[in-house]
């Protein structure tokens, strides 16, 4: 709605938002629920405000890639389901779904969050592959951060299935208590620029008016593992460093919420 979009821009210049939040405040509640699916090795449902995203982790034994014979691999796929927003259609993934899966993938992969060497069972023959599916249940804005949170929660909750030592067959109905070899816990935080002001956790209406956005994935020590810039306008060097500082601060906040709820 153009009326609301103009109001959002006006309010941003006064350091205000249309829903009364501070510019750098996440919506409430932030809810994390793990092990929601018994068919997946790890799963999570995360809610931030009205946005709801589910993530599932499947593990399978595959032949490693030729260039990395002693490593496993990860694959992340995102689906923006028609039930989550009137904008999404069923069918092959569109540009938004591809960007969502790639940004989430890059945060995990480039941080080397999963020790790929430990996933290898038999070099050149057999290694564990981690397949992560992200499914949106409701898109009320800020899918990047919520999907990142759901993915990390699902990875943390994943347990290897039982493998028959003789036949090598996987019994997906039985789980061991061995978790994934997670070395780091990267979380993406997206900072939006609306009318020159930095905004966190936008609603759908705010996502329609932003000039630029920067997704920054940082691990628990604050090391940046991946970034993604979007939007039509440019960012200055000062703005980027402000965005990175803000993203690191908010990632610490999100990590705190995650740890609190996973206990």
């Amino acid at each position, binding site marked *: *709605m*153009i*009326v*609301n979009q*103009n*109001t959002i821009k006006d*309010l941003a210049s*006064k350091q*205000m938002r249309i829903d*009364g939040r501070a510019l750098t405040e996440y919506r409430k509640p932030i809810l994390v629920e793990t092990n929601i699916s018994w068919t997946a090795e790890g799963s999570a449902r995360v809610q931030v405000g009205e946005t709801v995203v589910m993530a599932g982790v499947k593990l399978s034994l595959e032949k490693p890639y030729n260039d990395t014979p002693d490593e496993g691999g990860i694959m992340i796929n995102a689906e923006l389901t028609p039930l989550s927003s009137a904008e999404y259609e069923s069918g092959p993934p569109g540009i938004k779904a591809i960007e969502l899966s790639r940004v989430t993938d890059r945060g995990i992969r480039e941080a080397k969050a999963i020790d790929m060497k430990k996933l290898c069972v038999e070099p050149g023959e057999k290694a564990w592959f981690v397949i992560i599916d992200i499914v949106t249940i409701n898109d009320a804005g800020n899918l990047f951060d919520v999907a990142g949170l759901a993915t990390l929660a699902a990875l943390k909750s994943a347990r290897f299935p039982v493998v028959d030592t003789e036949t090598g067959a996987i019994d997906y109905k039985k789980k061991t208590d061995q978790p994934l070899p997670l070395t780091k816990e990267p979380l993406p935080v997206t900072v939006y620029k609306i009318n020159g002001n930095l905004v966190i956790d936008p609603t759908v209406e705010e996502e329609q008016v932003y000039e630029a956005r920067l997704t920054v994935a940082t691990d628990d020590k604050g090391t940046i593992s991946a970034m993604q810039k979007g939007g039509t306008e440019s960012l200055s060097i000062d703005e980027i460093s402000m965005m990175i500082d803000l993203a690191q601060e908010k990632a610490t906040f999100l990590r705190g919420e995650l740890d609190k709820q996973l206990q």
Partner: protein
Amino acid sequence: MSARHKLGGYRKMSELLKKEREIVIPGEILAQGMDFLPGENTYRENDNIYAKALGLVYVSGRVIKITSLSGPYVPMVGDRIIGKVIDITMTGWRIDTGTAYSGLLNVKDATTRFIKKGEDLSKIIAIGDYVIVMITQVTSQRLIDLAMREPGLKKITGGRIMKINSHKVPRIIGKQASMVNLLREKTGCEITVGQNGLVWVRGTPEGELKAEGAIKRIEERSHESGLTESMDAFLGGK
């Protein structure tokens, strides 16, 4: 002929099966017997009166009617609605009314100003703008004619628009506009409620936020009685 026929035939005792203000779903039997008459959102089949919509039962005299709680907005002549301009035609603007049918706002019904032939209509109202308009005619084919030449009818600038269930609009307005006047007074905002469920609020940022929260609360609690009093307490102070 038996005595029974002379008395007008044997008739079962009529019975009302639902209480006043009870929530019913389509297909539920509301009353048995011929003493009751089907009203709005109900129908008769043989001896029974059935519900046609999800809503609250109201009985006035012999007539049973249902005030529906959900479903799309049905355009009615005289309704003031808030619509979005979706197209500009040779003679006016096409407006999304929030129903399955769009409405037409003719140039002559839109403004008192003289408009020259060939003038750029998008300079007056552009695509994407929101307007407060009145429905002047709805044909049997659901072609909707709109007008904007009365006080209070205008193009919307500033503030915010929110969407609510169109069936809750009467509760937002209240008896003799008591509720909407209460909201205006307590929040200091300009509030226009479109019958199609779009509500426009303009005031200070804090006032707009307060009004938006109050309207959402009314929508949620629309079935409660004594709502105006409880909203007065909710809005409190100020």
